[in-house]
């Protein structure tokens, strides 16, 4: 019954175009990604560009009108995103809607949606000076400032970001993904317009489609996108340089539970090499798979210290993080318990069965990703900076090649770098 996908590979006016086309999907989604090296003085302007592009087009110049058009096209969406992928800034515009086959009277809506996507990127409504309109700009600028400030609301995510900033201080990766509040506030329509034009001309461009569609139709609808730049801008990330002594950062706020994030350097180069695969399996064994990992079984279940305690591997930066929420008085105990588990892996003190469970869990992920369009897209996009690109099936095979010895070596290369803690405390005076 299973039907592994084929990754379509082609181009649109010379721009890289990948896709997964299967009729079992009820939707079609196309994203145009722009990748640029993170640069402090440019991050904010670039991050604001897609927000302005998704607001309106010259043909549909009003925001509410755009909402009505998309709503009438079966609730389709035009979405902006700005983020970070290793040391690269990733800015994107996505159009997503029901596939033509699924509309009530088989109306063809995909062509109109792709046209909106193309026009959003190339043909936004501009004022008489050729810049983004002041009103649009102010609206999106305010919203982005609020969005950046809101990062503070989620203390788990906030703690993770603060750890990454502390650990990678001085590296492009430490820069906030949309710039700082002050940097966004200092923008003008002219600056953002300049960033838009520069992005079209110099960024690395990747177009990705997933769903029930046809590459030729998409190519035809998006024809013209590649007329401005070559889409071949520079790309790459550098792994984190390990510290000699552990950096400890503790901050206080009005929280009841303490959040601890530990950052480790993994000593592996980015990519799809054997060392990365071993690091991935090691991280899963330690705290990656939800219920069979060491951290779940020992730190949560046996010691009853945490509700959440897990690890993540950031391949592009050679970083592994461990996150947990604990009572403040148990912080030290939790840190020791986490390090203790890592130490047992370094000593090779794990069973063949545990190793097999970790691999089975990764295998399950590789196979499950086949069923989810968004998951497949992420799977491939996350490899865009590597020298080679793998299918989920190839990834699965590589996981099974990893030996116990390689896992032990991967654990031995891991080095604690930074410990960030957020806890309740004396930052505010009592009334």
């Amino acid at each position: 019954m299973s039907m592994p996908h084929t990754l379509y590979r082609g181009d649109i006016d010379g721009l890289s175009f990948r896709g997964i086309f299967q009729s079992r999907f009820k939707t079609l989604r196309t994203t145009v990604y722009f990748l640029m090296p993170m640069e402090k003085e440019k991050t904010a302007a670039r991050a604001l560009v897609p927000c302005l592009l998704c607001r309106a087009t010259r043909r549909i110049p009003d925001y509410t009108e755009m909402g009505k058009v998309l709503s009438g096209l079966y609730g389709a969406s035009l979405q902006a995103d700005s983020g970070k992928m290793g040391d690269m800034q990733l800015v994107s515009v996505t159009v997503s809607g029901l596939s033509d086959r699924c509309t009530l009277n088989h109306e063809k809506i995909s062509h109109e949606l792709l046209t909106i996507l193309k026009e959003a990127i190339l043909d936004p409504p501009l004022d008489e000076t050729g810049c983004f309109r002041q009103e649009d700009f102010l609206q999106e600028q305010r919203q982005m400032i609020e969005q950046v400030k809101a990062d503070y609301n989620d203390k788990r995510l906030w703690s993770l970001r603060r750890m990454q900033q502390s650990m990678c201080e001085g590296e492009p990766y430490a820069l906030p993904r949309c710039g700082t509040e002050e940097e966004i506030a200092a923008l003008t329509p002219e600056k953002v317009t300049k960033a838009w034009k520069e992005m079209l001309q110099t960024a690395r461009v990747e177009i990705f489609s997933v769903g029930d569609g046809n590459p030729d139709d998409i190519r035809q609808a998006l024809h013209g996108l590649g007329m401005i730049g070559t889409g071949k801008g520079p790309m790459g990330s550098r792994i984190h340089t390990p510290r000699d002594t552990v950096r400890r950062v503790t901050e206080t706020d009005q929280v009841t539970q303490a959040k601890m994030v530990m950052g480790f350097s993994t000593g592996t180069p980015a990519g799809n090499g054997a060392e990365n695969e071993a690091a991935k399996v090691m991280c899963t064994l330690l705290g990656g798979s939800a219920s069979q990992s060491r951290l779940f079984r020992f730190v949560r279940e046996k010691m009853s210290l945490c509700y959440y305690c897990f690890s993540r591997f950031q391949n592009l930066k050679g970083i592994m993080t461990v996150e947990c929420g604990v009572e403040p008085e148990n912080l030290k105990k939790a840190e020791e318990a986490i390090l203790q588990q890592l130490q047992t892996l370094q000593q090779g003190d794990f069973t063949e069965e545990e190793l097999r469970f970790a691999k089975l869990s990764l295998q399950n992920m590789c196979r499950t990703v086949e069923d989810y369009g968004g998951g497949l897209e992420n799977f491939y996009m996350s490899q865009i900076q590597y020298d080679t690109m793998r299918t989920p099936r190839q990834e699965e095979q590589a996981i099974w090649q990893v030996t116990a010895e390689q896992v032990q070596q991967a654990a031995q290369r891991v080095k604690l770098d930074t410990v960030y803690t957020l806890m309740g405390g004396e930052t505010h005076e009592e009334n």
Partner: protein
Amino acid sequence: MRKTEILTVERPAIGEAYYDIRHRSGLRVLVYPKEGFQSTYAVMGTRYGSIDQTFQRSDEETTCTVPAGIAHYLEHKLFESEDGDAFARFAKTGASANAYTSFDSTCYLFSCTGQAEENLAILLDFVQHPYFTDQTVQKEQGIIGQEIRMYEDDPQWRLLFNLLGAMYRYHPVKEDIAGSIDSIAQITPDLLYRCYHTFYNLHNMVLTVAGNIRVETVLAVCDQYCQPGEEQSVHRVFREEPAGVSRHFVEQTLPVSMPLFELGIKQEMGPMEESDTKTEAAMEVLLEILSSDASPLFRKLLDEGLINESTFGAERFEGSGYASVLFSGESRDPKRAASEILQAIAVLKEKGIDEEEFRRAKKAVYGRNISGLNSAEGIANGLVAMTLSGRELFSYFDALVALTQEDVTQCLRRCLIKNQEVLSVIWPQEPGQEQ
């Protein structure tokens, strides 16, 4: 003995079908095969959630009241058995397992890409075999205690429960699903067994399996693991909830960057009353008309800088004996945002729903619902939730298509009533201020 009955539910127009099975054991089983899928997603749910705190079994004389958070505690503990935990059994197949407790249900699930039969057997087996001891129950207090603490720091969670606390005087929906540190301290193995034997009866449960699966496989496992049991009913006891809301405004200060608001509009419901398919379909379209980014309300709020796109939204919140509509987001001026929303509702009532807007909203809602069929996970969880509240997925799509302007107008007049609102706000701390 009852025989197993199998019905096929299909909608050829969208190319979708599933099996609705009444298994001889009393268990309701829904199997939704998806062509071309590699993964299998299964959920076993029982109609037992955080609101079921006072109840009477048909074979008992008196009612019983249990500590808040016990349904959730039971969910955590059910994974354990005398010879190890269910997670370890799933690990052998590579399946990813989990569970969740809501206001009115508890669900256990796994997702796998092979050995579906073995995984189903594990699921059916562990859910039907409770094992609680003083020691294992005690151990969980630390873990769940940290889960409760985590939610205490979550402003969205506080926003909602502050709102529910102001909206309801007695309904247990106002209490945190996980209970409190104090309430969970009262939980014992005896109490867990009592709740288990009351609510984990196959007649009160549903199994759904979606994705890469054959109906024969599911039936074979059910035949082996689900034995016909006596149908036992349970009477849930809810105190009569007075009309109106308890308070119109509730606030708290937390470390957030700008104020968060949630405006709830309460709909009166009887103690066990549940909303129906048509009302829910009409409500989804109504909320699209009222607050989607194509609406005049959204335009006004955005133009005046009262909301932002990434956080503003409207949703339906309903279950056994409770129903409301919630508008939420970040706002520099929550009171003004709330008053604009209430004003927009009043204007819509007065001017009526525009034909063109109605058609557009209906298309948008239809499109998004059909898009949901991409996901085996979404289908399996959706089927469980709908079945436990007495609804059916495809009938919901039919109801959407059949909906008239008049249906939506009626929904507006019936469900969004004046003076039924509660505004909940989380304020940021001023420098030098401690909550």
